[in-house]
């Protein structure tokens, strides 16, 4: 079991990204009991917009330090993703709030396809390299290597999550969100503008998604128009694993899934004597998803049960 620490570190990095995306799924689910199928696409668009912005600035010979360029890119991508999240709610979910359950699912899939195809039209089918603007330094801890970028990803993710928890648990807006999640009709009777709250939930989730998208793109040095599907699916798995509708659960689920996947990809080949190679690593998320739904549909920390109401 060599490289154990290395796999753990890699798992922690990708896990904190999954956690950020999973928060978006779980917040929407908590309030509307719906899976936002188009969330993965928002993550992708966040990454693509950032890359485009940085490339434009580089093309205009703007001499700024890399970290500042990245911040500008992110500052452009977050509003775009927020606007998209708002738009998705208005187009796909709000008109169908009282329709049969199948209807919003289908519109969400349709939207996801539309966003994916639009992204392909704008950015093409190929991988977009992440501009090499960051000064990557590596540190060694007990034989494992960690970059300053990876440390930044973990720290930033923790900061964002802390801010989100503060928002939800301490602020007036957060209290309104929790009330809406508990019982939308009663919340409305108590004077909560539930439509605004639902919109805001989508918008906040999308902002987190955009940041996560940039993190993935920076970590793997690339992004492409079809990346949203797989990462969305994995983050959804993380949300289910932690207990969908539960914020802390999404974080735990994301980290656990990231580590399981990283360890799995690292040791699968050894464990099965070379029969299954790391090309099966994407199966882990699905396997975890199916196992959780089978044996503990409420997830690790969840209170809600995944039975049909």
């Amino acid at each position, binding site marked *: 079991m060599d490289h154990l620490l290395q796999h753990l570190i890699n798992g922690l990095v990708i896990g904190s990204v999954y956690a950020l995306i999973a928060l978006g799924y779980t917040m929407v689910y908590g309030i509307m009991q719906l899976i936002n199928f188009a969330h993965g696409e928002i993550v992708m668009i966040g990454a693509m917009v950032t890359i485009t912005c940085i490339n434009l600035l580089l093309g205009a010979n703007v001499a700024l330090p890399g970290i500042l360029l990245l911040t500008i890119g992110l500052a452009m991508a977050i509003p775009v993703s927020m606007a998209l999240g708002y738009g998705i709610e208005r187009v796909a979910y709000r008109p169908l709030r009282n329709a049969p359950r199948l209807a919003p699912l289908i519109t969400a899939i349709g939207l996801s396809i539309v966003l994916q195809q639009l992204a392909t039209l704008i950015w093409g089918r190929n991988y977009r390299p992440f501009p090499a603007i960051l000064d990557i330094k590596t540190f060694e801890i007990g034989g494992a290597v960690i970059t300053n970028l990876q440390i930044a990803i973990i720290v930033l993710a923790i900061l964002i999550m802390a801010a989100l928890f503060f928002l939800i648990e301490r602020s007036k807006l957060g209290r309104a969100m929790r009330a809406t999640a508990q019982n939308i009709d009663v919340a409305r009777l108590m004077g909560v503008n539930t439509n605004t709250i639902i919109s805001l939930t989508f918008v906040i989730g999308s902002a987190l998604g955009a940041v996560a998208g940039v993190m993935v793109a920076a970590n793997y040095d690339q992004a492409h128009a079809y990346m949203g599907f797989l990462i969305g*699916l994995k983050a959804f798995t993380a949300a289910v694993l932690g207990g969908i509708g539960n914020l802390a659960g999404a974080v735990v689920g994301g980290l656990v899934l990231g580590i399981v996947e990283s360890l799995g990809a690292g040791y699968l080949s050894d464990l099965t004597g070379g029969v299954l190679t790391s090309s099966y690593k994407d199966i882990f998320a699905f396997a975890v998803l199916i196992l959780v739904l089978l044996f503990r549909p409420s997830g690790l920390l969840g209170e809600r049960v995944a039975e049909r109401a």
Partner: protein
Amino acid sequence: MTMANTIAGWFGAGKDGQHAKLQLILLSVFMLALPFILSGSFASGNSWVRTIDFALLYIMLALGLNIVVGYAGLLDLGYIAFYAVGAYLYAFLNSPQIAAFLPVWMMNPPLLVMLLIAAVVAGCFGVMLGAPTLKLRGDYLAIVTLGFGEIIRIFMNNLDRPVNITNGPQGINNIERVSLLGHEFGKPLEFFGVQIPMVHQYYYLILAFCVLIIFVSIRLQRSRIGRAWVAIREDEIAAAAMGINTRNVKLLAFAMGASFGGVSGSLFASFQGFISPESFILMESVLVLCMVVLGGMGHIPGVILGAIIVSITPEALREVVNPLQDALLGKRVVDPENLRMLMFGLAMIIIMLLRPEGLWPSRRRKDELHPATKRITKQEDATLTEAEREHE
């Protein structure tokens, strides 16, 4: 003549049996003559017949998914996996790919046996997928089926090591064509002095199975099971209270839908002569779903119409978009494939928002979604105002 009446009913005919029979005969004659009409009237006729062949395969697929989504109301986003299972089964038993591992008697089974195997195995996969997931809520089911579709594809892509089973991303080549009554479908056939090309032969073969599947679909819809599916779709708790074993009936929907996919997949492999994981990506599942949604969930003619529209559009787009771009812009900016998916994505949204019953809904569904009370009130309004006017 219940079948004829049913089919005639789709086209708005009354209960008149004679009329229904006539319509059915006309439709049959048209369907039988279609490949020759196409190859006779277009220079690229044979490629159009090929498109129609694929459209027929898609009709089978869409009718299979219609059982799951349309009747039982279970959103399956990995449906193409069953198509893949059927196609790979056919390829395994009819190509040199894994012939070395199989006993000789298993190779090249007769067509009907082959399709039966495909239907049963795909059905088993359906049960395998359904058993653990059916107690979940609809949106979970959608995501689990989506994951299942991806798992099947990842396995197809990677099962070339350590033992080469699926030949990985390259796919399986040299798949033998169907042979029926001593005739091999790859070879040209002469019939009363008329040359019948391969695509035409396959047209009739696929059409035959397509008709069979339409027949089964109609019968299923009116059966006790079909009504149980619809009951579950409308209200699962009420259905259970009426004594329906919801779990088994839902499993049956999954198995049934999957077996349609399996048969269609086998025919696809034999027609194409080559398969690779490329043909079974998520987008294909979404396309089949789009056919069902576009045409009208749960209504057989609507689903058929949806399948025809969705499967013919890319050909039509290719013939229009590229020349148009060349003429207007002098270069190709937009890939027709891209445009097609964009259109279908939009179509799904628009249909769900504005016309959730689909393009060609059943009368009952239309009434459910656009309650008749509205229309009656309008009528009553009209009569009332008329009466008032007369009174004045």
